């Protein structure tokens, strides 16, 4: 007897890693191969991040004075990028056992020399501006964010 079953994307992601190849192929056929790639491989553009998080496109921020709008737009982009790469996980910043990773940039005095220097982490300390919304769950994701989204982070830091 043949029966069709409905399966949610969330459940498919849970089942996929430990499924036999035949079932993996069936899941890939239904959701697409890219759907099962690691999140850091699926997020290559801001549009990818917006899609994965289901966030609306960048607001105009016309509620704030004009000279601050680009700064807030850049901040929104970085928040969405972090949310996407973290798979939606929010941090408990009071949890001293939970590492929070951040990209660390070197600024050599010009836009062209700006770039990722490394990823750093904190447990119980945090500096002004580094909120839980801009932290990453591991150093790999922090580095990827700093490399792939260099322009967005530079805008947030400099505008």
């Amino acid at each position: 007897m043949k029966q069709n079953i409905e399966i949610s994307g969330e459940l498919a992601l849970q089942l996929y890693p430990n499924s036999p190849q035949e079932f993996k192929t069936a899941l890939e056929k239904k959701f697409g191969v890219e759907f099962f790639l690691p999140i850091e491989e699926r997020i290559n553009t801001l549009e990818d991040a917006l899609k994965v998080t289901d966030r609306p496109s960048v607001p105009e921020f016309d509620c704030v004075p004009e000279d601050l709008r680009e700064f807030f737009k850049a901040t929104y982009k970085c928040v969405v990028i972090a949310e996407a790469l973290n798979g939606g996980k929010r941090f408990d910043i009071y949890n001293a056992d939970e590492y929070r990773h951040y990209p660390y940039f070197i600024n050599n005095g010009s836009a062209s020399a700006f770039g990722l220097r490394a990823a750093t982490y904190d447990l119980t300390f945090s500096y002004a501006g580094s909120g839980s919304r801009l932290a990453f769950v591991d150093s790999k994701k922090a580095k990827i964010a700093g490399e792939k989204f260099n322009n967005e982070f530079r805008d947030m830091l400099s505008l």
Partner: protein
Amino acid sequence: MKKNPNLEKIKTVEDAFEATGRPKVDFTNVPEDLREYFESQYNAVVVTEALNGGKKPDWDNRNELKWRPWFIMSASAFGLRGSGCDVTVSTAGSGSRLQNIDEETAEYSARQFVDVWRGVQLG
């Protein structure tokens, strides 16, 4: 006697709005769960601007030290741990809008406006 005269004048968020002439805004145009974060961020920008006397640190100027407070993260003891400065490196979130012109100002900002900074961390 504080070197930065703004530290004597700016004691509340209201003072910062008055000094900068910035309007109060609401962030109803962003997703609801992000509004508190952006409101805190806006308040932090306005407080920093007021304490810096309107001077926005030049992010591309390697010769200009930029100071920011560091906090100890604890629900019962959230507060200033110290302040640090950088010339050529910067971490995500520590942009020029949130940097102070000197160490004294950074430490005052953290102590006087601890609720604003807590909002940025938690929002």
